[in-house]
């Protein structure tokens, strides 16, 4: 069962994509949001799961939230999003900026997640091995750095067929809003003190990285693994870029359902 629906969120709405039947697993997206049901959601649902994927405010159809001005605001908004979407206490897969927010939330609300599968989270910074700036490049450059195969994110970056001209303009505005929200979460350096809070993340965590991540070097997997108190698995997906689940949806779905302590 596939559906896209809206839920009231403060004075506006957020959009949720849901697919499949079975035990519930949440997905907190990365920088390209959820431009409709995408291959990773479908792959994960194929393992007899109901995947619930809210778009955070400002991303892919969810209205921007004018109250967001700081990372603290984002963490509160993420917490509310889990509640509104019925995901509090569920196992969650979180990617990129979504993974960073999941860690920040888990540090202050440890019961928010039954377990986490984190795909290349932002949040740490090594000046000798820095993360890339995904935005100091042209739009095509911003796109190509996110995945090993630039076409993997076509659903987000490209105009969709059979759309009227006026809708394409609004699609472009919505895409710009998503990119703005993505940028705002990691601007100018994606390090906001998370390392001092990681010891508070007590739920089981599985870490996944793409071998060809050009945004956050794969060496950061070890940094997170060393800093988190309850890492139950680490995986490097060969040939995948930063948004591993977009490059290799089936492989990541398999890792999720076989991760220790995945189910409640």
């Amino acid at each position: 069962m596939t559906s896209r629906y809206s839920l009231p969120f403060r004075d506006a709405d957020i959009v949720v994509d849901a697919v499949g039947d079975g035990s519930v697993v949440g997905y907190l997206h990365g920088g390209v949001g959820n431009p409709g049901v995408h291959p990773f959601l479908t792959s994960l649902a194929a393992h007899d799961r109901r995947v619930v994927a809210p778009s955070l405010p400002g991303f892919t159809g969810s209205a921007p939230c004018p109250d967001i001005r700081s990372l603290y605001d984002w963490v509160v908004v993420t917490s509310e999003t889990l509640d509104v979407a019925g995901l509090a206490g569920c196992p969650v897969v979180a990617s990129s900026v979504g993974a960073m927010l999941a860690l920040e939330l888990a540090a202050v609300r440890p019961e928010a997640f039954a377990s986490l599968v984190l795909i290349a989270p932002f949040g740490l910074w090594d000046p000798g091995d820095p993360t890339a700036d995904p935005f100091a490049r042209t739009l095509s450059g911003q796109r190509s750095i996110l995945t090993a195969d630039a076409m993997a994110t076509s659903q987000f970056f490209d105009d969709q067929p059979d759309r009227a001209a006026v809708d394409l303009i609004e699609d472009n505005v919505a895409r710009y809003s998503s990119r703005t929200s993505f940028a705002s979460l990691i601007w100018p350096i994606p390090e906001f003190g998370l390392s001092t809070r990681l010891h508070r993340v007590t739920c089981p965590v599985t870490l996944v990285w793409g071998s060809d991540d050009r945004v956050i070097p794969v060496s950061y997997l070890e940094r997170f693994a060393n800093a988190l108190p309850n890492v139950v698995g680490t995986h490097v997906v060969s040939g995948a870029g930063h948004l591993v689940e977009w490059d290799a949806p089936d492989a990541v779905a398999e890792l999720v359902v076989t991760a220790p302590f995945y189910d409640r």
Partner: protein
Amino acid sequence: MKTLWFHLMPYPELPDSFTDDHRSVWVDIDPKLFDPKVAHHMYNDYIDELEFAATVGFDGVGVNEHHSNAYGLMPSPNIIASTLARTCPDVAIVVLGDSVALYNPPLRVAEELAMLDCITGGRMIAGFPVGTPMDTLFAYGQNPLTLRERYHEGVELILKAWTEPEVFSFNGHYNKLRYVNCWPRPVQQPRPPVWIPGGGSVDTWEWCAQEGHVYLYLSYFGYKAGLKTMRGFWDRVRAAGKEPNPYQAGFAQFFGVADTEAEARRLYKEPAEYFFNRCLHVYAGFADPPGYKTPATVRSGVEGMIERAAREATQRRAAPAGLGGKSTMSFDDMVEQGYVILGDPDQVAEKMVEMATRLNVGHILALCQFGNMDRDLAMHNTELMGSKVLPQVKHLFDDRWEDHWWPKPLADHERHRPVAR
């Protein structure tokens, strides 16, 4: 019509191969290209030029703010303005201005501009740009999501600091000040004129129209390219129920004056090519980061000045040489498209009137030094503009419109008299 002599202060010794060897004049330009000894002469030459302009017929002189670049070397416009405050006693001084969101708290801007207004006896115009994305987001690390809200809050704080008669508290999202008490306060009451430089943001038109600020279009690409933008602004003014007073607008334009058109082409070719090809050599990846534009501007499809410059530079570099592609823009193109208004004084005056009339702008920011133009040529250009062009154009609009956005200085008998030396 009022004409101000406006300086960008470009770094004058970028290498000939700069466009080919370096990706950007802004943000990550090679620090090794900067020579402080060059800058010593550059700053003093440029201040000489501004001071000279103040003596030959211009109504004002102008400075602005940029960071981490060779396009314009005024990280602090207030420093340059403070030198001019003393040495240019008879003209307006327009600071275009302080990028409000970059100051913490922006009360500092209120204080420094009030100092300038006191020193000048009320000849200061306060410009408040949002700032380019290169300056604000990349060089100064502001967050694109909050830049404009922070900017508007800062402007609100400054204007309130100038006009509130009592000490007050300011509880903003970004500025928490228990006691706001701006000492000094500006000479001009209730406050100095506010001019807002813009590069094409739809929301800035709307805001200026509603608040009654001057909208100043900082165009690099001539008045014909500016028609759409200015039309958008005037539409907003009319929609706000106000008259289209040309003095509520300004426009920046490059000028090159000589005794003949042929001489003008000979004199200004190199500096124009230097400016348009090297000073505007902005890497496209710095020109349009997500969040810098408002949703309304994205929806309108209006392209900003910097964005256009970067796009055109990228297109020129990408064009195959064998198919006529070249990494630089030709001088003939610049003149043909009106980027630079060139000619003898009569020709320039005629084009200036045409430009001001069609755009309906009462304030012209004249760029008479550009690129690597040396001081002697800049002064020659300035002198011809001041003595032979401006007398032909200065009365435009006077028969119908009053300039409500011009400084109101102290009367002569109230002004400070410098000590004889």
